[in-house]
C-alpha cells in the first residue's frame, strides 16, 4: 500500500506541476524562489528521566528513557504555494512529523507520522488460587505508529471537482497479556505474553463535486486489518468428557479482517429558504479467518427550513442496519428521527426545542425491539457581551433497553441500561473584568430503571478562573468534581447447581466513585527576555464497590483509590532574536492508597536550545 501511495503521490505532483499555472520549471520557478517568504527553527536538547513503580499508570504513554531530543519547524510561502513542515523526536519510540504542502491550491497534501509507546498493565492474578503466569511481572508495552496522508487535487479545467486520495497506516507492535482458563475443573488461569504485530491499512479515494447550490462527495474506504503474530497456545489438558477443548490449542486469536465502505454525501440549498443534507453508506466487514461477513447500510437526511431570523427548524431521519451473515450473529436496525426548533425570542439569545424518536430492532439479542424518546430544551443568552450562560434539560424514556436473559435460570433478566434518564446542565462564562474571566458549569443526571432495580446519580461541577493581575503575570486555576453513585441489582448462582435452586439475588449493590481535580498554572514574564512558567495538578479519585457479597469483602479487591500529583516549572530565555534557551523540570506521582499496586513516580529535567532563522 505504501508503494501504491508513493506512485500515486508522484503522479499527483507531476500532474499538478503540469496543470498549475503558478508552478512551472525554469524562469518562473526561479522567480518564485526569490520571492519566497521562509521562516524556520531548529532545536535540540537533552532530557533526563528518573522513574520507578508501575509504569502502566504513571507513564502510560511516555517514553521514560533519558536521551537527546530535537525538533524542527519550517514554513515557507511563495505566491500561492505554501509548505509547513514540523517534526519532534524525543526518542526512537516517541516522534511526530507533519508536512502540509499546498501547490498553488491545485495540489494539497497533508502528511503526518506519529509513533508513541503505550505501557500496559500485567495482571498479577493474586486473587487466584491456582494460576500459571509464564511472564510474571512483565512490563508489557505496545509501540503504536500512525502514518496519514490526505491529498487533494483540483484541476483548473474542472474547478467544480476535487479529487481526494487519503491513505492511513496504523500499526501496533509489542506484547500484551493474554489469559485463558486452561483447566476449567480447577479454575486454573493461564497467562502468558502475547505478541502483537497488527496493522490497519486504509486507502480512501474520493471526490467532491460542487454543482451550483449542491455539493456532493463520494468516498470509497478500503481497509485491511492484519495480525501478523500467531495466537498463543496453551495445554487445555484431557479434562472431563464434556470438555469441548482438549490438548494444545490456541486462544486469544485475533482474526484478520477487511472492510469496504462506500459513502455518498449531499448538501444542497433548496427553494423556500431551506437546505437538505443526505448521506448514504454501504459497508461490508469480513472476517478472513472464518470467512463470514457483516454488511451495514446507513442513510441519513436532514431538512432545514429558515422561517425568519427568529425561527429555524430542522427535521431529520437516520437509519443504520447491520446484517451479520454469521450463524447466530446479532442483526441490528437502528432508526431515529426528530426535529430541532431553534428560536431567538430575545436579542443574543437562543432557545432550542428538540425531540428525537429512536427504534432499535434486533435479531439474536434481547429485547427484539427498543423504543427511545428524547426531549431536549436548551436556552443560551449573551448579556452585554461579557456574560454568556447556557441551560439545558434533557429527558429520555426507553421502553425496554438491551437486556441479558439468562438461559439457565428462567425469569432472570438483567441490564445496566436505564429506562428513564433526566439530565440538567448549566454553564456560565463571564468576563468579570478586562483581566478576570470565570467559567463554571454544573451537570446532574439521574438514570434509573425501576424494573431492574437500578438507580444512578451523576454529579459534575467545574469552575475555572483566568486572572491577569499584572501585565506580565497570567494565572489560571480550575477545580472539578465528579461523583457517580450507582445502586444495582445483582445475582449469584451456586456453582454446579442448575435452575433457580442455587440463585441468590441482591438489590441495591452500591458502587460509588468520586474524583476531584485541582489545577493552577502561572506564566510570568520576568524580563523582556525571560519567561517563567509553572503548574501543579492534583487529582484524587476513588471508586468503591465494597459490598460484602456472599460473605466476601470483594471491595478489598476491586476498590481503587488513586491520588495523582503533577507539577512542572520551566524557564525560557531569549538570548537574542535567533537563540532561545529553555529548561524544564517535571515531577509526576501516582499513589495507590489501598493496594500500592499502581504506585509510581517519575521526574524529568530537560534543557535545550532553539535557533530561529
Amino acid at each position, binding site marked *: 500500500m505504501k508503494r501504491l501511495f508513493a506512485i500515486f503521490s508522484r503522479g499527483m505532483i507531476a500532474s499538478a506541476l503540469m496543470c498549475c499555472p503558478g508552478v512551472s520549471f525554469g524562469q518562473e520557478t526561479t522567480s518564485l524562489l526569490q520571492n519566497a517568504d521562509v521562516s524556520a527553527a531548529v532545536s535540540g536538547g537533552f532530557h533526563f528521566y528518573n522513574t520507578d513503580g508501575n509504569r502502566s499508570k504513571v507513564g502510560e504513554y511516555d517514553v521514560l528513557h533519558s536521551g537527546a531530543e530535537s525538533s524542527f519547524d519550517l*514554513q515557507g*510561502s511563495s505566491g*500561492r504555494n505554501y509548505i509547513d513542515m514540523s517534526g519532534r523526536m524525543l526518542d526512537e519510540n516517541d516522534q511526530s512529523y507533519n508536512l502540509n504542502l499546498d501547490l498553488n491550491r*491545485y495540489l494539497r497534501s497533508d502528511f503526518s507520522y506519529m509513533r508513541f509507546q*503505550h505501557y500496559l498493565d500485567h*495482571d498479577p492474578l493474586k*486473587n487466584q488460587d491456582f494460576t500459571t503466569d509464564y511472564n510474571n511481572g512483565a512490563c508489557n508495552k505496545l509501540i*503504536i505508529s500512525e502514518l496519514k496522508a490526505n491529498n487533494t487535487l*483540483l484541476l483548473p479545467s474542472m474547478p*467544480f471537482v476535487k479529487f481526494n486520495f487519503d491513505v492511513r497506516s496504523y500499526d501496533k507492535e509489542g506484547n500484551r497479556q493474554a489469559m*485463558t*482458563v486452561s483447566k476449567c475443573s480447577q*479454575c486454573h488461569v493461564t497467562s502468558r505474553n502475547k505478541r502483537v504485530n497488527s496493522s*490497519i491499512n486504509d486507502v480512501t479515494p474520493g471526490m467532491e463535486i*460542487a454543482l*451550483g447550490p*449542491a*455539493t456532493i*462527495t463520494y468516498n470509497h474506504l478500503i481497509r485491511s486489518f492484519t495480525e501478523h503474530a500467531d495466537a498463543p497456545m496453551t495445554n487445555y489438558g484431557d*479434562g472431563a468428557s464434556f470438555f*469441548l*477443548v482438549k490438548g494444545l*490449542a490456541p*486462544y486469544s486469536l485475533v*482474526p484478520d*479482517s477487511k472492510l469496504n465502505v462506500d459513502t455518498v*454525501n449531499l*448538501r444542497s*440549498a433548496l427553494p423556500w429558504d431551506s437546505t437538505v*443534507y*443526505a*448521506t448514504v453508506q*454501504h459497508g461490508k466487514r469480513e*472476517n478472513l479467518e472464518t470467512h*463470514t461477513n457483516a454488511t451495514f447500510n*446507513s442513510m441519513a437526511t436532514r431538512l432545514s*427550513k429558515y422561517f425568519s431570523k427568529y425561527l429555524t427548524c430542522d427535521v431529520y431521519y*437516520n437509519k443504520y442496519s*447491520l446484517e451479520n451473515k454469521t450463524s*447466530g450473529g446479532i442483526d441490528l436496525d437502528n432508526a431515529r428521527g426528530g426535529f430541532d426548533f431553534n428560536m431567538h425570542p430575545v436579542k443574543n439569545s437562543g432557545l432550542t426545542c428538540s425531540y428525537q424518536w429512536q427504534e*432499535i430492532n434486533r435479531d439474536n439479542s434481547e429485547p427484539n425491539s427498543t423504543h427511545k424518546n428524547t426531549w431536549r430544551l436548551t436556552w*443560551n443568552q449573551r448579556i452585554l457581551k461579557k456574560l454568556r450562560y447556557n441551560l439545558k434539560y434533557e429527558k429520555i424514556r426507553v421502553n425496554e433497553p438491551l437486556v*441479558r436473559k*439468562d438461559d439457565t435460570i428462567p425469569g*432472570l433478566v*438483567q441490564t445496566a441500561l436505564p429506562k428513564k434518564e433526566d439530565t440538567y446542565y448549566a*454553564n456560565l462564562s463571564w468576563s468579570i473584568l478586562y483581566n478576570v474571566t470565570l467559567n463554571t458549569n454544573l451537570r446532574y443526571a439521574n438514570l434509573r430503571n425501576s424494573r431492574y432495580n*437500578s438507580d444512578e446519580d451523576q454529579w459534575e461541577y*467545574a469552575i475555572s478562573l483566568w486572572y491577569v493581575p499584572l501585565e506580565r503575570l497570567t494565572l489560571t486555576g480550575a477545580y*472539578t468534581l*465528579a461523583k457517580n453513585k450507582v445502586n444495582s441489582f*445483582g445475582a*449469584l448462582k451456586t*456453582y*454446579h447447581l442448575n435452575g433457580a435452586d442455587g440463585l441468590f439475588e441482591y438489590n441495591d449493590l452500591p458502587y460509588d466513585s468520586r*474524583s476531584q481535580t485541582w489545577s493552577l498554572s502561572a506564566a510570568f514574564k520576568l524580563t523582556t527576555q525571560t519567561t517563567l512558567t509553572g503548574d501543579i495538578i492534583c487529582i484524587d479519585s476513588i*471508586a468503591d*464497590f465494597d459490598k460484602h457479597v456472599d460473605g466476601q469483602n470483594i471491595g478489598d479487591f*476491586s476498590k481503587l483509590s*488513586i491520588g495523582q500529583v503533577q507539577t512542572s516549572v520551566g524557564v525560557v530565555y531569549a538570548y537574542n532574536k535567533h537563540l532561545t534557551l529553555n529548561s524544564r523540570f517535571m515531577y509526576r506521582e501516582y499513589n495507590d492508597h489501598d493496594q500500592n499496586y499502581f504506585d509510581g513516580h517519575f521526574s524529568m529535567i530537560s534543557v535545550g536550545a532553539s535557533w530561529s532563522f
Partner: protein
Amino acid sequence: MNRSTAALSILLLCVLTAWGCQRFLKAGENRVELPMIEGAFYVGTDSCVPCHDDVYQQFKKTVHYRLNAAELKGMQRGCETCHGPGSKHMQTKGKAQDIISFAKLPPEQSSQMCLACHQGGPTMDWRANVHVLNGVGCNECHKSHKITGPKMVYLGDPDICFTCHQEKKAQLMLPSHHPLREKKMKCGSCHNNHGSENNNLKKQSLNDVCFECHAEYQGPFVFEHAPVVEDCSICHEPHGTIANNLLRQSEPFICLRCHRGHKINPKTGDYPTSGAFLTSCVQCHSAVHGSDLHSQVNGGGLTR
C-alpha cells in the same frame, strides 16, 4: 441489497431535486440573511493595509490569502471576501458599522459567512452541529486572520475544546484515559465538531469510530457479546475513568449488572476456588469483545 438500492434511490432523488433547484437559485445562495453594506463598493485589499497592516501581515500567511479563482467562486479576493465592500468604511475613516464585523454578528450569521465557501468536507452537515445551536459559531474556535495552529484553530485541539468542556478535561486526567493530555490524540480524532448525524461523531455508528484504531474487535465473530455489537459505550467511557481499561465501573460490578456471578457451592467447599469468583471476570472470560474460538464447557463463554 434491496435496502442499499432503496437508499441509493433516495440519494439519487435528492441529487435530482438539488439539480432542478439550480434553476431557481443563484450559486452559493444561503438561507440565513447575510449582512449587507448599503451603497458600498469594493476597493481592494491594498486599501485596507495602511490601517490594518498588522492583521494583513498575518493574513498573508493564511490559506484565505492563497485562494485561487476557482475557490473564490467569483467573490472579491482578499479582506473583502468576508468583510464585504469597504468603500464606506474608508470614507467614514473606519466606522465599525460600515464594514462586516464578525465580532458584532450573531454566531449563526457569522458562521453562515464561512459556510458560503465551506460547503463540503466536514461542514456538510453543519445544521446538525450542537455548537451553533448553543450560540457557538466558527469564530469561537477558528481565527481566520492568522495561523494559530492546524486548521487555524485558536489554542489548538484539544485545548480549545477544554475552554468550554472542562469536565471532559478533568475526565482525561483520570487514571484510565486516552492519550489526549499526552498530545497523541485530539478531540477531532473521534469527533466531527462541525456536526454529524451521530452526536458530532465522525462515523454513523459509535463502534465504527472505535474500530478506526481498535480494528481487532471489529469481527464479525462467531461468538459475540451483545453490547460490543450494539454500543461500546455501554461498558466503556472513552473520555476517562477511575476504573481500568476505561470501564464505567470496576470489575466485577460492571459485569454483575448484566450477568449473574458464580457462587461457591457450600457442599464442595472451596472447589472451585473462591478467589476465582467475584473478583475479575475477564481473567477467565478474557475474550470479552468476541471470539471465533469456542470455550471449554459452554461454547459462548468467551474464555478463549
